[in-house]
């Protein structure tokens, strides 16, 4: 079930996301929901240049890989990185 009260989430960015945002750490207001998908939605809305990665973004919660459905709280340490690359 989605939570309706808002959260302020601190997100650490890696790779080109850092360059796009112009900083290493951003704060996102999550007004609807409490999952990493909600965080990614807000991130993409704020920085449309990352939309191409949206479904494949690498996300960690408290230093562990996490899926889009993972629930979060304001205290969690979230990172967003470009997708794992597979070319050789």
């Amino acid at each position, binding site marked *: 079930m989605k939570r309706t009260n808002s959260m302020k989430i601190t997100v650490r960015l890696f790779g080109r996301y850092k360059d796009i945002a112009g900083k290493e750490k951003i704060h996102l207001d999550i007004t609807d929901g409490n999952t990493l998908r909600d965080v990614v939605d807000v991130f993409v809305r704020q920085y449309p240049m990352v939309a191409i990665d949206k479904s494949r973004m690498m996300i960690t919660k408290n230093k562990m890989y996490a899926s889009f459905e993972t629930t979060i709280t304001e205290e969690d340490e979230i990172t967003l990185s470009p997708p794992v690359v597979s*070319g050789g």
Partner: protein
Amino acid sequence: MSIDRYRRQTLVEELGQKGQELLAKKHAIVIGAGGLGSNSANLLVRMGIGNIDIIDDDIVDITNLHRTSVFSEHDIGKSKALIVQEKLQPVNTMVHVKGINQKVTSENIDSLVRHADVIIDGTDNIPLRLLINKVSIQYKTPWVYAGVYGTVGMVMGILPKKTPCFQCITQDTLDLSAHEIPVLGSLPATIAAIQSNETIKVLLGRQPSGLIIYDVWNQCFDTLDIKRNPNCPMCGKKNKMN
């Protein structure tokens, strides 16, 4: 051992003569001889890994030449693995370089990597990396993942059961190998150099740490600190192999 060949390398405090002698006893298996694998093999041969096998069933294509330093136009149509052997063995006759013109599959991977001290990822697809990951855990053999896309490269040394495995970071990753992946020509050599550094460190007993992300265009060099996933279907507790 020729003192001169590795003299400047043995002056490196972290390696020394002892480390150099240790490298000479090691066996590295490079899977894939494209942009990453051929460049990594080149460096590892020069740095003195005692035995290096390079496995690939592909042939050299003109579209490979912009991102490799081993192949030339004369090699087009020939086996990548055998050309790497032919070109690199004369570089250092103190090591043994073996090219294996074979496709790595779930049927033969055990016999190909069983005696490896480390596996070097020179592949271009996720399924093969997951297979390497599986045998790495099975035989407790470290491996060093590397991948490139456009102007972005990633490297991660993996010590089975000690550091996150490949599955720990790729549960939702799509395989793009069916598409022609864009790659800046200089990127694979850069990423292969980082991969070779991680390989040497692993072989000398240093524990790798995190996923290295290098974005050439945006000048970002980061290490993502990531822990093992206890619920990982491959290295987590639920897998009976563990």
